[in-house]
């Protein structure tokens, strides 16, 4: 029983990590008033960039670096079109997802079914050997801890720093922020690039640690779940963590129950996380007033400075 519980918790944390990374990035992007629906595309680009680099060089940290670069480059492409050229953000985000899928499939065509070095699990002397808590808390790879640290930094920055205040001002009233002398568009560029880097990192976790392989469309909608998570959290970092763990658990359970050989056919179990997303989204969105209360007021709106 304990072994089952440990396996459940360890796997849940692992499955939650890519969601958490991508959603943390998207949260920052949405807090400055930008809706980037290209998370799935950026994750895929990050996944293949990390995998290809790690495969060619044999160094996983270079792979992670490549994923950060790939994610933020794609995000900047989105920024140019939606922020500078002021195209519809929803449509531009979709374009980014389509492009990222195509790009990753093209680059990844030569990498299907071959191995790459994977991220090692950290083994911390003494701590990792504590029963139950040891494997659950101290047996993961570096990106799992990084995801938590990044979330904490983002939460603190948004809540308690001057930079966070500027970000929130830009997201809640870009005209007021502009009038105060803040450069709305460059700030949004920075947030979008940061969000892209984290989406890329989420992809790197998928291809270097979670799966760990490259397969076309391997993120399987996780980028979209991450977008849903941001709404679920009502744009608050702490709730992002809860949501990511919840969906991580759901993803693990749908695999685990299949392995047990329960009478439910496996394709239907695989659909479970997606059904869960719809259900949770419906439950959360039901209270429109609450959503409006937390939603960054400028979300999805283009900004044009009036001279």
């Amino acid at each position, binding site marked *: 029983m304990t072994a089952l519980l440990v396996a459940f918790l360890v796997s849940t944390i692992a499955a939650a990590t890519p969601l958490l990374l991508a959603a943390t990035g998207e949260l920052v992007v949405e807090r400055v008033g930008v809706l980037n*629906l290209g998370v799935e595309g950026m994750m895929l680009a990050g996944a293949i960039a990390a995998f290809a680099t790690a495969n060619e060089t044999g160094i996983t940290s270079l792979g992670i670096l490549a994923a950060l670069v790939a994610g933020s480059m794609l995000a900047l492409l989105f920024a140019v079109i*939606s922020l500078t*050229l002021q195209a519809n953000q929803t449509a531009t985000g979709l374009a980014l997802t389509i492009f990222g*899928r195509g790009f990753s499939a*093209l680059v990844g065509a030569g990498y299907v079914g071959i191995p790459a070095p994977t991220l090692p699990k950290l083994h911390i002397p003494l701590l990792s050997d504590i029963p139950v808590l040891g494997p659950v808390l101290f047996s993961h790879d570096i990106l799992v801890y990084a995801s938590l640290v990044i979330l904490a930094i983002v939460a603190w920055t948004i809540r308690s720093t001057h930079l966070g205040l500027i970000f929130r001002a830009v997201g809640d009233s870009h005209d007021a922020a502009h009038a105060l002398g803040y450069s709305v568009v460059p700030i949004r560029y920075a947030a979008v690039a940061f969000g892209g880097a984290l989406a890329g990192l989420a992809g790197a976790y998928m291809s270097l640690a979670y799966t760990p392989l490259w397969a076309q469309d391997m993120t399987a909608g996780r980028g979209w779940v991450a977008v*849903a998570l941001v709404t679920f959290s009502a744009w608050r970092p702490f709730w992002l963590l809860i949501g990511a763990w919840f969906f991580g658990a759901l993803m693990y359970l749908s695999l685990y129950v299949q392995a047990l050989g329960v009478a439910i056919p496996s394709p*239907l179990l695989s659909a479970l996380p997606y059904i869960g997303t*719809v259900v949770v989204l419906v439950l959360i969105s039901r209270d429109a007033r609450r959503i409006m209360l937390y939603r960054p007021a400028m979300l999805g709106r283009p900004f044009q400075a009036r001279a």
Partner: protein
Amino acid sequence: MLKIEPRGIESKFWRYASPVLALLLTGATSGLIFAGMGRPAGLTVYTFLVAPLLQQDGLQALVVKAAPLIMMGVGLSLAYRANVWNIGTDGQFTLGAICGGGLALAFPDAPAWAIFPAMMVVGTMGGMASGGLVAWLRIRFNANEILTSLMLTYITQYLLVYLVVGPWRDPQGFGFPQTALFSDAAAGPRLIADTNVHIGILLAPLLAIALWFMLEKSLLGFQFRVLGQATRAAKFAGFSENRLVWIAMLVSGGLAGLAGLLEATGTLGQLTTTLSPSYGFTAIIVAFLGRLNPLGAIPAGLLLALTYLGGDAAQINLGLPNAVTGIFQGILLFYLLGCDFLLLHRVKFVSRTRLVSQASARAV
């Protein structure tokens, strides 16, 4: 020096010129990418965009590929006009194929006059049910239709896999994940005998024209346009947003369902685990390339159908992965959206001296 100034009103010229410019830029950019991959750029673009048409039966293959894209693009043009972001047409397409295909499998001996029209109705209703669910979740629970429609796509895909490897698998199929072939009666009429040129090729442009009339010439169409461009004005005018959301989702879902059913009967002849090569995302580009005008979806659908054939041709003739299609489509949508900047902005070439003199004149 480049100088950018707002136009004030939308440029009529760029309204039609901007998709053309986007296409040219996409061609040039893809050429550069191919060159970067160490391929001859000209030959690759030629193989991708021209060669498929010159093949035997190339035009026939093109219209067969384009029919579902046009139908879905037409529905999305309507929905996006009203700011209803249905991005789950893939799922609606699949559910249409499941429902209509299921009927064909259940009644293998039914006569053609009965079974095929019934399949079209049931397929359309399948797509409408999926789209309608999204509309209901948005209206009743305020749930974002982008996310729900996309999640339903994944759910429907798993439902398809379940049916095709499970209860609907062909017992004589040697274990392949596919259903039995539909009966000849269920295959539907052909425009050209013994080809896969099914009636969808005729239906797609007719539906485009019908929806164009609805959108441009009727009060309902006017309401759609107002809701999309000026939500507040639509509310003051008393237009029911909920009603338009319902219509947008039911029509775009229904058209996708019909497209899925026709694809299953017309070109595949059975259900398999992969019905749609990302038609849902491609249909989004069709809608935008067609300027969210149902008539525009016809040439746009033909062009994007060409990118699928081009992907296959590039794979066969040049050994490129057919993912080239996806990257080409993504670049195209980027340029389409970016070029629309020219609709409302003028880019002027101004000599530096003139700028300086203007500035000094202002200073005086």
